């Protein structure tokens, strides 16, 4: 028996060393593709991008921010590999502070933090690196409390959502529509407030079903397609025929429910029609665009021109095309005039959109 | 049997003395313990039973050829010689029993024969030709099949699926059920196994499951079957059925090797018997001419002890009084019904009964592990009915549980922690709220010494000990606390004969010193031999009180089955 056990151990060791050997043989090939922002001359552009939970590939604001960096770098003649370092936080995002600190220590400038969760962190880190320029997507620095080297990149989500509400109310046949929020946070409540206001502006008697997938503090609602599916399914069964989601990755479930119910849905952040499979394209009526990519691109461009002000916010609204509605698929072409009419009224200040429900 | 009469041998003395004497006795016979003993080829001549001349089991006909022959098989494990110089000759077409105590080396031997490990010395001959097995697969290929004590069947598969599992007949990649079904029906009919190939195993009883295991082995073409303690899991009626099946196998010319330590069964079913003791074969016996007692003495290497008690030591003071104790099972069925009894100082009160008649529940009730629906329990002058188990233990209740693995030991804990178990609130194992590790270790060592617990040391895990040594540790631990009343439930169950007599002696000594003992047992000799008073329990009630001095096991058996409720003595 002892011999058998010895052999087992030997086998394990062998397997282990084989694995190591296999790894070692990969060395030259892997070595090349490794480091991102290696050599640093001071005039070279070194952009640091710190994601929020979800990181790259969330098909939502993280990816959108990445796209913005990509566009800016391309315009400025750099490459992602040479000029950009992206960092994702760990699973519980407890190391956000370290992300910013390390980027700053490694000489990255500007540094863009994605998400309002960086609010306290950036206020803590930025003052330690006064020579570095920071920007925070979805985070306000209107009063300059986070330091005068921080720019807040904000969006008038309620304005875009208002138009989504207008579109939904114009298109509904049951006078009942739905809203699925990812996490019940002030940010997502802005979407809800605008959407409901827009719908009521068109049809004052309309019913809007509202549901959030997770309570404040629990971010699972942005990554739970199963919950998005069941909530949307419930809405459709109760008679709603259009559901707007502001639920990040959970929106996938909302679209699926729409496909199965033969009803329609409204996407969020990016033009989700473009990235959806064919069966879902048939139900994505429009998407409420939140152009994080534009904002990030613009910020980097102005940084390279040396025109970043700092200690203040830049707000992207309907007027600056920071938010809006997508028209892919042509499902809302027939109501374009209605939508444009409301857009103009908002831009002109004739309609004020609430930010809280 | 002379019950409680006077006897010639008296000295009670401390346990130390007795154990010391025990060693002397052993060395006097030239069988000092230790592996050397095994290497030197077994015990001395005084207990050797190999007989010269022709074998007696086939006196009339020409002896059948040998199906299996083992010559000088020795198997060593690090530091241990599990088998040494094993000689075994099994003739074709016979039921050959291998008997020996637990730990005598039967299982090691069978694993050798089944190819689960290879012997260090010696040879295996099958039908006269040398054979060498690297794995059970080789053994199966050579026609040897093993029916394990614990069945290896998948419950939610049918009989057919279980039988073919691992050697499925296939048509392409599909299981060829038709062929399999035909073959299983053939086997079942031929050996009268009575199996329905399409029944689910989970619907089968234990006996049927065993027949599935046998069919499985036969399906693979075995001509020699090894049955490892096949009756351990069977009720008497199933045992008879099994023996019928074995007769069928024999009639068809198959060879059966039957491992057991139940001597009566062996004598009933076997054509020849080989006895194993301490890793080696000590002789063969003819079941027709050998008594169970003779067999047992061959197994043990000495004449058997009996549990005779000494002169009555019963005093007047009651230590335990049960008044109308009634216990209900969770399903509200009354399992202990209005039981009243008294145990006095120095008295052993035996409780006899077929298992499952409420003895276990009664013991639990006295220990405070089950609540009463009616009645009172008094320990000495105290009414302890409402006391917790711990308080009862502190108040002087000792407990040797029926199932030591379930209630008596922490198998994965060292011996010294097991020493503490049940005595968490008393020195020397604890000081205040803290465990006294040193004290516990020292006291464990003392118990090991005084109660002859054979283990490397107090840090050994309890599971490393044989059943007998575990039980001796429990007895030692409980005795150390000097309880006023000891509840001994099946105190010698599953322990070897040596440990059995040590435990009996300890109980007798404790009784002599004034301890009251409640003895629950299924061993009628033990009950009759040790008890001063004997109650019979049937369906939760005490149906008879008997005087063990004037009682035979047969009479007691009659009472236990309710056929003979004569009552009071």
């Amino acid at each position, binding site marked *: 028996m002892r011999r058998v056990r010895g052999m087992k151990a030997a086998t394990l060791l062998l397997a282990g060393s084989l694995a190591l050997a296999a790894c070692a043989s990969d060395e030259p090939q892997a070595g090349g593709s490794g480091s991102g922002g290696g050599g640093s001359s001071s005039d070279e552009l070194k952009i640091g991008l710190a994601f929020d939970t979800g990181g790259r590939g969330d098909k939502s604001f993280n990816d959108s921010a990445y796209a913005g960096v990509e566009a800016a770098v391309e315009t400025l003649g750099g490459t992602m590999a040479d000029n950009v370092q992206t960092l994702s936080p760990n699973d519980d995002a407890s190391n956000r502070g370290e992300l910013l600190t390390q980027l700053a220590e490694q000489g990255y400038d500007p540094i863009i933090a994605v998400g309002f969760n960086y609010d306290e962190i950036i206020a803590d880190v930025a003052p330690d690196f006064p020579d570095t320029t920071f920007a925070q997507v979805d985070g306000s620095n209107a009063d300059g409390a986070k330091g005068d080297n921080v720019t807040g990149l904000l969006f008038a989500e309620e304005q875009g959502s208002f138009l989504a509400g207008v579109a939904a109310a114009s298109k509904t046949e049951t006078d009942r529509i739905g809203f699925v929020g990812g996490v019940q946070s002030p940010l997502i409540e802005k979407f809800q407030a605008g959407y409901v206001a827009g719908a009521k502006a068109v049809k004052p008697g309309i019913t809007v079903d509202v549901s959030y997938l997770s309570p404040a503090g629990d971010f699972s609602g942005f990554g739970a397609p199963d919950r998005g599916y069941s909530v949307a399914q419930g809405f459709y069964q109760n008679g709603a025929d259009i559901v707007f989601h502001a639920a990040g990755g959970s929106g996938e479930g909302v679209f699926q429910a729409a496909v199965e119910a033969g009803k329609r849905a409204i996407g969020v952040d990016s033009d989700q029609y473009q990235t959806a499979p064919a069966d879902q394209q048939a139900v994505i009526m429009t998407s409420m665009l939140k152009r994080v990519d534009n904002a990030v691109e613009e910020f980097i461009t102005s940084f390279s021109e040396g025109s970043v002000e700092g200690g203040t916010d830049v707000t992207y609204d309907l007027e600056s095309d920071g938010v809006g509605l997508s028209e892919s698929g042509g499902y809302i072409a027939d109501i374009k005039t209605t939508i444009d009419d409301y857009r103009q009224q908002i831009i002109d200040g004739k309609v004020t959109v609430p930010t809280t429900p | 049997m002379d019950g409680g009469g006077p006897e010639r041998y008296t000295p009670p003395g401390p346990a130390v003395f007795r154990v010391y004497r025990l060693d002397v*006795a052993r060395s006097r016979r030239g069988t000092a313990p230790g592996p050397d003993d095994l290497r030197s080829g077994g015990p001395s001549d005084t207990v050797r039973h190999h007989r010269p001349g022709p074998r007696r089991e086939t006196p009339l006909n020409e002896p059948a050829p040998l199906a299996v022959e083992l010559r000088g098989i020795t198997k060593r494990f690090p530091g241990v010689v599990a088998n040494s110089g094993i000689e075994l000759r099994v003739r074709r077409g016979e039921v050959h029993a291998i008997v020996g105590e637990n730990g005598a080396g039967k299982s090691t031997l069978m694993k050798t024969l089944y190819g689960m490990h290879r012997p260090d010395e010696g040879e295996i001959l099958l039908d006269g030709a040398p054979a060498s097995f690297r794995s059970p697969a080789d053994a199966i290929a050579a026609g040897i099949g093993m029916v394990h004590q614990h069945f290896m069947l998948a419950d939610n598969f049918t009989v057919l699926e279980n039988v073919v599992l691992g050697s499925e007949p296939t048509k392409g990649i599909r299981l060829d059920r038709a062929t399999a079904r035909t073959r299983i029906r053939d086997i079942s009919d031929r050996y009268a196994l009575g199996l329905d190939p399409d029944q689910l195993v989970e619907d089968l009883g234990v006996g049927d499951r065993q027949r599935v295991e046998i069919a499985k082995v036969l399906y693979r073409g075995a001509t020699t079957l090894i049955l490892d303690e096949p009756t351990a899991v069977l009720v008497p009626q199933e045992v008879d059925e099994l023996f019928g099946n074995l007769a069928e196998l024999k009639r068809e010319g198959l060879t059966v090797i039957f491992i057991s330590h139940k001597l009566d069964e062996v004598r009933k079913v076997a054509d020849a018997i080989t006895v194993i003791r301490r890793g080696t074969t000590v002789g063969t016996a003819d079941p027709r001419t050998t008594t169970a007692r003779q067999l047992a003495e061959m197994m043990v290497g000495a004449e058997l002890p009996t549990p005779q008690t000494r002169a009555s030591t019963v005093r007047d003071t009651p230590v335990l009084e049960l008044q109308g104790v009634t216990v209900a099972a969770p399903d509200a069925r009354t399992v202990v019904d209005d039981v009243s009894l008294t145990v006095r100082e120095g008295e052993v009160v035996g409780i006899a009964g077929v298992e499952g008649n409420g003895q276990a529940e009664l013991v639990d009730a006295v220990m405070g592990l089950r609540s009463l629906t009616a009645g009172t329990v008094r320990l000495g002058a105290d009414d302890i009915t409402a006391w917790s188990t711990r308080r009862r233990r502190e108040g002087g209740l000792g407990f040797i549980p029926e199932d030591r693995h379930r209630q008596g030991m922490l198998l994965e804990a060292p011996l010294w922690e097991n020493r503490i178990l049940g005595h968490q609130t008393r020195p020397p194992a604890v000081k205040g709220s803290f465990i006294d590790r040193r004290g516990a270790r020292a006291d464990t060592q003392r118990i090991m010494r005084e109660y002859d617990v054979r283990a490397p040391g107090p840090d050994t895990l309890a*599971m490393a000990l044989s059943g007998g040594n575990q039980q001796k540790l429990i007895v030692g631990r409980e005795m150390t606390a000097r309880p006023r009343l000891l509840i001994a439930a099946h105190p010698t169950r599953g322990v070897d004969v040596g440990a059995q007599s040590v435990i009996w002696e300890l109980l007798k000594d404790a009784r002599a010193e004034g301890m009251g003992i409640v003895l629950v047992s299924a061993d009628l000799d033990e009950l009759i031999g040790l008890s001063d008073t004997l109650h019979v329990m049937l369906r939760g009630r005490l149906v008879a009180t008997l005087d063990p001095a004037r009682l035979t096991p047969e009479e007691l058996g009659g009472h236990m089955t309710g056929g003979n409720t004569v009552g009071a003595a």
Partner: protein
Amino acid sequence: MTLLRRTGLAVFAPLLAIVVALAISALVIAVIGENPLTAVRVMLDFGETPSQQTQAMVVVVNRAVPLFLAGLAVSVAFRMGLFNIGVEGQYRLATILAAAVGAAVALPGPLHVLLIIGVAMAVGALWAAVVAVLKVTRGVSEVISSIMLNFIALGTASFLLTGPLRGSPEGASVITTSDIPESGWFPGLNGVVTGLGLAEPRSDLHGFLLVAVVAGVVVAVLLTRTRFGFDLRATGLSPSAATASGVDARGMVIKTMLISGAIAGLIGLPDLLGTSHHYGTEFTAGLGFLGIAVALLGRNTPVGIALAALLFGFLDRAAIPLQFEGIPASVVTIIQGTIVLAVVVANQVARQITRRQAERGSARAGASPTTGDGGRTTDEREGARA
């Protein structure tokens, strides 16, 4: 089998598991086209300047402290055979209530901190007690009830945060409770760090480290040296044997869950008292579940859990430098996952080896002198037979 060999096995099994897990992870890294050796180098590289190096160490320890407490909470219950999955809910609820109480009162320094710690432990314990009471009185499996109570706890915490305990201004993106005044902060240990001749790190070393160490020592002593700990472990090893020995199983369930919950209540405090000073929507979640992994890895002993927590902290820290080398941070998660899996397997194997060795030991004890003998003289036997 000697004690030494047994401990050897106890240490060897997790070590082997870690090696196997690292080999698997190396394979994964190689498969995604990166160099495993780079990964190893990055993990071991704590930075260039002394300040960066101490900072890296502080990051590791700061991460390890809550993980250790979480593992400890899980392990106490586990030693008794209870699977407290509710640690997550226990600490979240405990932290928010402790934060609220801490913000609502003003007391002199040490008292203020003690009050917060006391509230957190009490809330954690009470929440865990619900599980215990359900188990003892209704026989509800603690696994089921603690999972369910997690949902309730998270929901309640959210409700409290967005409702009565909201301290952040209306409209702020991050919702938090009010800040605890400075008297309720736990001082950092950077003075000690610099006192040891190390460079001043950027972040404060959590002073709560001391509390964690004390908790670990108390639990270790409680489990291995006290009667209570003996009863607890005995119940874990064999509930039936423990009951027969006089242990009050129901009482033990309640007491154990109270202790487990009280420790769980501490998990959020290093962060609450050391850095954030309020509970909010961005407060670190999921530590309760990580604690299960840490406890498994640490084989449920305080020392093991401390090592496991440090290992997790170490791996966690590497996530950022790995990304600088172009290796995705999820590699760290993969490593942690494979380690835990490998350890579970290795523990099982070690158990079987121990068992087999023990059985061999019994074969030895059985093979030589099992038979013993009656210990009776010939006279006696004849007397008995007569």
